């Protein structure tokens, strides 16, 4: 307890030492227009109706719990696409570090910020959700880790779970959303170097797989998101076709997984909330101050976590089960992954479509030195998608994510609770899902 208090004091002191109040959103300086209120109402109504039908009528038996039935698409392990991806990952890391340190210090003209905040952080997981996990091969630290020859220590993985990765995720999103210099090329380069040193240290200590498993935020992030995809790889490395979301059900239950998933939702929620006038008025003069925004980000994540824990507790009561709320929360953690993806996609897909175009101009002149390698250096961003279409995509994404979450939770409840109590236990989860839908849409509506 004393150690924890000391740690909090230390963090607070560090935060107070950081000056320069400002809002940072990685790159861009643009946000989407608020979603009109009627969209929000339709969205919530659809979630309600679909959830109730799914719960009460269509789904009396668990269907997903056995995991995916995979159909092998390639008889041999696929090697070359993986090697090309690994090369791209390494080149990307080198580019981020060199351009970040030695290139022009302008986030719109340097290739480092767009590579990290758009391509690495958003495009790779979004593609993973559709086409299967690209990150395993792309991961430059995994490639570097093949130089490390240390014995694997799986016992370490069992003991610490994914907690280090969750804290890494928290720091990364803090750099994106709170730290005013987060969009600056040299900040991105420093972060990349520090993160590389951190992961190499972990891999030397615990072995390559175990080190990445416990410490690499993006290994866990991409594994969770790409379990939604209908494509994957089996143990022999062969490409397989499987059902959508089915791999989520059989994800390993690493320690700290619940914490990780709650952070995925909490940090994106903070990003949306912090852009609203409501949030700025709430913080008043402290708005934009690093310490206040940091506390705000932690508070929003804590609120999401508390709501989830309460839903798990209520499920235990309603199901008259003898598990602890924590066990139930862990058992349902995978049901939050589609919601986390939906939040991230609804908030950031225009960042990919619009600011993502910076990759074309900055790759042609990665250091901002006036080069034009591909003839695209002068290309300006084309904001081509209309606000109306953006709204439809956002609302559809939020609703689809929550319906998927409700279905997964219902199926898990049928499997672990007494049959007569299972549906009843889901009223609490449904309440949470609807609350999260409302929150997601309200943030979009409040802009």
């Amino acid at each position: 307890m004393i150690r924890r208090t000391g740690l909090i004091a230390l963090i607070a002191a560090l935060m107070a030492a950081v000056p320069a109040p400002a809002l940072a959103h990685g790159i861009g300086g643009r946000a989407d227009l608020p979603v009109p209120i009627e969209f929000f109402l339709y969205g919530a109504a659809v979630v309600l109706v679909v959830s109730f039908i799914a719960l009460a009528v269509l789904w009396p038996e668990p269907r997903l719990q056995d995991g995916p039935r995979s159909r092998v698409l390639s008889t041999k392990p696929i090697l070359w696409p993986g090697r090309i991806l690994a090369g791209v990952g390494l080149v990307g890391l080198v580019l981020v570090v060199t351009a970040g340190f030695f290139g022009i210090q302008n986030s719109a003209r340097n290739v480092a910020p767009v590579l990290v905040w758009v391509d690495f952080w958003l495009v790779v997981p979004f593609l993973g959700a559709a086409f299967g996990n690209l990150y395993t091969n792309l991961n430059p630290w995994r490639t570097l880790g093949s130089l490390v020859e240390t014995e694997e220590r799986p016992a370490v993985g069992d003991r610490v779970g994914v907690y280090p990765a969750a804290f890494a995720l928290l720091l990364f999103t803090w750099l994106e959303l709170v730290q005013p210099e987060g969009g600056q090329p040299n900040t991105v380069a420093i972060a990349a170097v520090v993160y590389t040193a951190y992961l190499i240290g972990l891999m030397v200590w615990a072995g390559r797989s175990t080190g990445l498993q416990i410490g690499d935020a993006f290994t866990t992030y991409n594994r969770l998101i790409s379990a939604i995809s209908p494509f994957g790889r089996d143990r022999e490395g062969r490409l397989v076709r499987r059902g959508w979301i089915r791999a989520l059900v059989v994800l390993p239950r690493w320690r700290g997984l619940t914490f990780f998933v709650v952070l995925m939702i909490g940090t994106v929620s903070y990003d949306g909330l912090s852009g609203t006038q409501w949030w700025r008025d709430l913080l008043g003069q402290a708005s934009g101050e690093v310490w206040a925004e940091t506390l705000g980000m932690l508070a929003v994540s804590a609120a999401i976590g508390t709501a989830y824990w309460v839903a798990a507790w209520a499920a235990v009561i309603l199901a008259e089960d003898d598990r602890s709320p924590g066990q139930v929360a862990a058992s349902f953690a995978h049901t939050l992954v589609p919601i986390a993806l939906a939040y991230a996609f609804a908030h950031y897909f225009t960042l990919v479509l619009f600011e993502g175009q910076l990759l074309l101009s900055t790759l042609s002149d990665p250091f901002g030195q006036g080069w034009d390698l591909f003839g695209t250096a002068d290309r300006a961003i084309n904001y081509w998608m209309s606000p109306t279409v953006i709204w439809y995509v956002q609302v559809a994404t939020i609703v689809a994510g929550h319906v998927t979450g409700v279905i997964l939770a219902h199926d898990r409840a049928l499997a672990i609770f007494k049959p007569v109590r299972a549906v009843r236990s889901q009223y609490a989860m449904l309440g949470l899902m609807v609350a999260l839908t409302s929150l997601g849409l309200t943030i979009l509506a409040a802009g």
Partner: protein
Amino acid sequence: MSRRPIFLLVLTLVAAACSGAADTSTTPPTISETTTSQAPATTSPGVTETTQTTTTTQATTTTAGPAVTLIEIVVEGGTVDRVERFDLPLDGAVRLVVTADVSDEIHLHVYDLHADVAPGQEAVIEFDATIAGVIEIEMEDSGVLIGELQVAP
């Protein structure tokens, strides 16, 4: 029969979640300090700020006809009292004037327009609001957000 109370409980929860959410999203629309441009006869268009009348109204209501929407932001102590969000119609002409007690560079994101500001030297940025979205106005050197444009069709 025993399922019914819980059914109702969920409905109530759901209703509470919806209404709670609706409450927060129906907060009053952003009232922005805008100044109606009333071109005086005696001065050139470049220096009209000194004779404008300030009114507190929504920016969207001040743009009848070909009038330019004028947005004024005052920076004191290197920051603003409150980060305002200025509503603007898509494709409307805009004149953004920033006065400050510090030296910095004003950066209007997305449109990517810059103007220097200093004590006694206003930053003036004139443009047509052709790109929709919520767009940051930032002091480039200090990184302080001083306002946002909300450009909507």
